[in-house]
């Protein structure tokens, strides 16, 4: 690999896709459409969220270089982004026919199946990938995604913790731990996850925004709402209703009524205060 490609790759790894694209445009004409140069190009464009161009680049590269699993992976991802799931599937399956053990292809196909609601098939695909490379970041990320889609927040958080343990330098691992912790109401762990992710990759807007949201959740005025975040609205409500009913049944209707009133005030607080705090925190940042 020549120096230009090396440099482009390094830029991508540090989250500077625009500079990577500039670097790639410096390549001589006969190397610009090479398979690896085009893969880097696709990766850079995807980081910039320019998915239609990813698809165009992948198609052009496939035309120039012939079938190639890595290029088919990019084509499939771009088609999936565009909502053309059947074409995406064909690209992934063509890629898997060439490279049946490709972990990235297996995980991308699993993602596609999950988005189609085929969670069992997605699980089997990611298991296959995990058998090849149990500690690959993409395998962790896909397993977390699937656990989340199943509604299993606990497993999602457990796998994220494993992911951070194995790849402590990976910003995506920290961001996923942040997201899965937030889903379970562990506000401090969630903030820590996104803070580390944003620190490791300051160019990624999403990490910074999530860290920001969790700064809001950690605000002192939000403290009374911790039970809802921690145990979920469902359990908190059930406990409150059970208490109110219990007090009435125990012959203490006045106390039950008082608790009911307090609960109503608490509900109103939980609807009114969060948007205000958010506005506040955002303003103090700008």
């Amino acid at each position, binding site marked *: 690999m020549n120096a230009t490609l090396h440099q482009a790759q390094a830029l991508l790894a540090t989250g500077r896709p625009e500079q990577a694209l500039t670097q790639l445009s410096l390549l001589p004409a006969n190397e610009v459409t090479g398979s690896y140069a085009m893969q880097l190009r696709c990766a850079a464009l995807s980081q910039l969220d320019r998915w239609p161009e990813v698809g165009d680049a992948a198609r052009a590269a496939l035309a120039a270089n012939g079938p190639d699993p890595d290029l088919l992976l990019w084509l499939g991802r771009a088609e999936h982004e565009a909502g053309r799931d059947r074409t995406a599937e064909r690209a992934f399956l063509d890629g898997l026919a060439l490279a049946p053990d490709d972990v990235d292809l297996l995980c991308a196909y699993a993602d596609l199946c999950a988005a189609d609601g085929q969670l069992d098939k997605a699980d089997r695909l990611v298991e296959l990938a995990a058998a090849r490379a149990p500690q690959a970041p993409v395998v962790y990320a896909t397993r977390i995604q699937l656990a989340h889609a199943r509604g299993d927040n606990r497993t999602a958080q457990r796998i994220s913790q494993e992911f951070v343990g194995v790849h402590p330098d990976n910003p995506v691992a920290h961001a996923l731990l942040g997201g899965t912790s937030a889903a379970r109401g562990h506000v401090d762990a969630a903030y820590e996850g996104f803070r580390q992710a944003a620190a490791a990759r300051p160019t990624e807007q999403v990490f910074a925004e999530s860290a920001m949201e969790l700064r809001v959740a950690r605000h002192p005025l939000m403290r009374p709402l911790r039970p809802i975040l921690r145990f979920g609205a469902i359990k908190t409500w059930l406990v409150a209703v059970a208490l109110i009913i219990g007090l*009435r049944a125990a012959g203490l209707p006045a106390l039950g009524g008082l608790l009911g009133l307090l609960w109503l005030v608490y509900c109103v607080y939980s609807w009114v205060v969060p948007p205000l705090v958010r506005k506040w925190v955002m303003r103090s940042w700008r």
Partner: protein
Amino acid sequence: MHDDLFRPTISEQPPPGKPPWRPESIVYPAFFGGPLAAATLGLLNGRRLALPTTHLVAIGAAGVAGFGARIAVGALTDGNSALRLAGTVCGLLVWLVVLSLQRRPFRVATLRGREPARLIGPGFAAAIGCGLFEALVLAVLVR
């Protein structure tokens, strides 16, 4: 070895209709409105999530059963507070049925990049409309 895994299974997706509501949020109209509000919103959301007919029927049946239970409570006890309480409890039970059937399809829908719709307007409408309807039916039947 993995022949069946590597066979195409993705079907053509129907064009996305209205975005679904967060099933967790239906708890509020269910609490204030009662079983019929929970079932109505559950059915509408079930259609947005393209649930199979059996699940939609289950949600509808849960709503009817919940309202039936409330009528039974009204017939067997006197005093308004037991009746109000029955409305809340039955509403929450119906909502649990809705949640158990819709949590996974909702998360799959968000995987597909769909943003949930706001439930505030429809939630208030269902809670007030269905709540009044239940009160009316109860007043005619039991009182």
